[in-house]
């Protein structure tokens, strides 16, 4: 077990702690109003941007950040346009974007014949995390959380009582766009940990587990952070011991915790009733 004290393990866990702090508040809101498909569409939209960044800049942190941002912002604008200007329902549009962007990303990688393990791009590899990405994670945590907490009340009111939020002259489009942009940033930052395919896992799985523990939204956020750190620790540990990819290891750990908690809470409810 001496690897627990090794630098690689520590850096991987530290990056997951930053991601847990960032992803949990957003994840709890994302799962509240069935918006997780939105997160899914954003996360898959990152693949073409990151693949193009890889062609031009190689395995560069700044390249991934810029590529993901450009790709994600284009998709946010496209989703906004399609949802406002066409008759299609939001979930249909999101599913289409999700499928098209994933395919486009794979085609770009295949055609460019980049010498990279596609697995790293799709499912992440915490063991490749550069130190500058950790600095970026720390810096972005200080930036993203205050912005989120500044729109949190307005976002809550829009979700619980849209009519009253319009009466208070809260700009619904602006608040929602800020929220989705924060989701986009955090999904980009999750890239090294879980890749573009599993990026949403850090947001959704701990938030879903937290809902089984607590009814209150504040409590759900705190619980989600804790669960996210625990699932990361278990995932990284398992990946070190059994030599499996860390991203899927973390997500599977989250899935395992979810099933255990679900069984426990169901049995507890049965006994109490």
């Amino acid at each position, binding site marked *: 077990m001496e690897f627990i004290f090794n630098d690689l393990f520590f850096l991987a866990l530290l990056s997951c702690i930053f991601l847990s702090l960032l992803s949990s508040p957003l994840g709890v809101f994302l799962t*509240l*109003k069935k918006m997780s498909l939105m997160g899914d569409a954003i996360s898959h939209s990152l693949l073409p941007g990151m693949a193009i960044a890889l062609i031009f800049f190689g395995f560069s942190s700044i390249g991934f950040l810029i590529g993901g941002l450009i790709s994600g912002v284009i998709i946010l604008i496209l989703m906004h346009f399609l949802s406002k200007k066409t008759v299609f329902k939001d979930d249909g549009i999101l599913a289409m974007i999700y499928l098209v962007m994933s395919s486009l990303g794979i085609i770009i990688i295949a055609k460019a014949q980049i010498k990279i393990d596609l697995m790293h791009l799709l499912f992440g590899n915490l063991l490749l995390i550069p130190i500058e990405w950790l600095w970026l994670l720390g810096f972005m945590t200080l930036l993203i959380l205050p912005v989120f907490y500044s729109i949190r*009340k*307005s976002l*809550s*009111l829009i*979700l*619980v*009582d*849209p*009519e*009253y*939020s*319009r*009466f*208070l*002259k*809260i700009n619904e489009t602006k608040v929602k766009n800020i929220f989705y942009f924060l989701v986009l940033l955090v999904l980009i930052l999750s890239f090294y940990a879980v890749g573009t395919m599993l990026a949403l896992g850090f947001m959704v799985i701990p938030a879903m587990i937290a809902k089984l523990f607590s*009814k*209150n*939204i*504040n409590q*759900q956020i705190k619980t989600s952070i804790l669960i996210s750190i625990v699932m990361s620790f278990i995932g990284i540990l398992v990946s070190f011991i059994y030599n499996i990819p860390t991203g899927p290891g973390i997500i599977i750990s989250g899935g395992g915790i979810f099933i255990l908690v679900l069984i426990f809470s169901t049995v507890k409810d049965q006994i109490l009733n």
Partner: protein
Amino acid sequence: MAVILEVHNLNISYGKKKIVENFHLKVEKSQFVALTGRNGSGKSTILKSILGIIKFQGHIHLKTDKIGYLPQSYLLDRSFPITVFEFLQLAFAKEKKVSYEQQQKEITQMLEKLKISFLAKLFLNELSQGQFQKVLFARSLLNSPELLILDEPLSNIDESSAVELKNLLNDLNHKGTGILLTIHDSQFVKENCNMIYNLSSDKVDENGIIDFCFHPKEEN
């Protein structure tokens, strides 16, 4: 008596469909005004245009910015996981001048005033419809409004809750708050309102224009 709300030539359309045509309304301080009419006649639409929630053509002059609003309760998502106290805090989402401590104090006092302090820690989906309506009512009173705009405040609630809310409305009105509400309870309208605007009116004035305005004794 000072006029706090005036509406002239109000026209509202959804696409090509006209919902409200040439509507006029006036609310004075301490006046209790009811908007009545069939479902779909445009009562809620008029309230929303007054509040600036929807687009309209015509003139609306609000002479106070201290307005309280109670929307129809079915529009709210009560599954949202917050307590009554947290829900009331959201009313200050855009408020920069009132400190956090002041907000807490105002909410606590309002809950005490309406005798619903015991609801503060309950979640929205744990409340009965009557209790929820009282919470919405508490929110509408948080900024000590001079004009209260209430959309169906008495619908879907039990008799005893309705009586309590009616008494509260009368009490506020006697203390000088102007009230404009949509309502189906004709008995309540006759007994309490100073003026009625019936959107299903077939009364036509000498110029052939529909007259929406009635005094309670005229209204059937």
